[in-house]
C-alpha cells in the first residue's frame, strides 16, 4: 500500500493522507486531468462514478454522480479554487440536489487540498480534506461509499494521549 501517513484531526474535522506512488508526477496529475481516469479511481467497487462535467480551472466545475448497486444516483460536485499543474489543486466539494447539479443548500461543503511533488523517483501525494460539520462528514458516509473494514484506529487514543 502506498499510503505512508494518516492523520485525523478531530477538532478541525480534518483528514490528511500521504501516499507515495511509484509513478512520475505528470502521471499522477493525469488522473485528475482526465475524467475517464478519475472515474476509474473515484468510486469504490459497486459505486461507479460518472463525471459529467470536468473543468480543471479556477472556478471550474466537476459535476459527477455515483450509482449505487440498487441503481440510485447520488449527485455531487467540485468547484475548483486553485490549480497548480502538476503540483496540485484545491477545491470545494458538495452535494447536489439532482441531475442539474444545483448545490444542495442544506448541506455544507468540504474543502480539499491535493498536493503532488516528486519524491525519490516517484510522487508523493498529500490529500487534505476539511469537513465543515459532523453532518457533512456523516453524509459522505451515508452515501454508502464506505468501503473496507473499519480500521482499529480509535480516536480515543489520541484524546487520551494529547
Amino acid at each position, binding site marked *: 500500500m502506498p499510503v505512508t501517513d494518516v492523520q485525523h484531526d478531530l477538532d478541525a474535522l480534518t483528514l490528511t493522507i500521504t501516499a507515495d506512488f511509484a509513478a512520475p508526477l505528470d502521471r499522477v496529475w493525469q488522473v485528475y486531468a482526465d475524467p475517464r481516469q478519475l472515474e476509474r479511481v473515484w468510486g469504490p467497487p459497486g459505486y461507479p462514478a460518472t463525471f459529467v462535467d470536468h473543468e480543471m480551472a479556477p472556478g471550474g466545475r466537476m459535476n459527477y454522480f455515483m450509482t449505487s448497486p440498487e441503481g440510485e444516483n447520488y449527485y455531487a460536485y467540485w468547484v475548483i479554487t486553485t490549480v497548480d499543474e502538476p503540483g496540485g489543486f484545491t477545491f470545494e466539494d458538495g452535494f447536489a440536489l439532482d441531475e442539474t447539479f444545483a448545490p444542495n443548500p442544506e448541506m455544507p461543503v468540504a474543502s480539499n487540498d491535493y498536493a503532488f511533488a516528486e519524491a525519490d523517483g516517484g510522487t508523493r501525494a498529500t490529500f487534505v480534506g476539511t469537513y465543515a460539520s459532523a453532518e457533512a462528514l456523516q453524509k459522505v*458516509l451515508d452515501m454508502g461509499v464506505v468501503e473496507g473494514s473499519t480500521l482499529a484506529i480509535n480516536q*480515543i487514543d489520541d484524546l487520551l494521549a494529547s
Partner: protein
Amino acid sequence: MTHPEGSEAEDRADAWFHALADRTRRDILRRVLAGEHSVSTLAKSYDMSFAAVQKHVAVLERAGLLTKRRQGREALASGDVEAVRSVGVMLTDLEALWRGRISRMDELFATDTTTEKD
C-alpha cells in the same frame, strides 16, 4: 434523499461534534475517561466558575459522552468510552474510502507499466 432515515444518527453526531468543539470540554472528557471525577473536583481545575464547569459537563452528558451519578451531595462524572470511540469511527470510515481510492490509483499506474511492456 436529502434527509435519510438515519437522521437520529446525524443528530447524535451533531451533538458529539458540538460537545467536542470546545477545549475545556475536551479536557474534561479526557479527565473523566481516565476515571470518575466529582464535578466539584473538576471545577477546581479550571479558571472558571463552578456553574460554568457544570454547564460544560451538562453539554457532554447531553451528547452521551459522559454519564453522571449521585453520591451523597456529590455529582460524579465518568466518560463513556464507547461513545467517544464512535466519533473517531466516522473519520476512520472516511479514511477507508480514501485508502481505496489511493490503492486504485496505484493499480492504475501498475497497469501502465504492464501495458508498456506488452
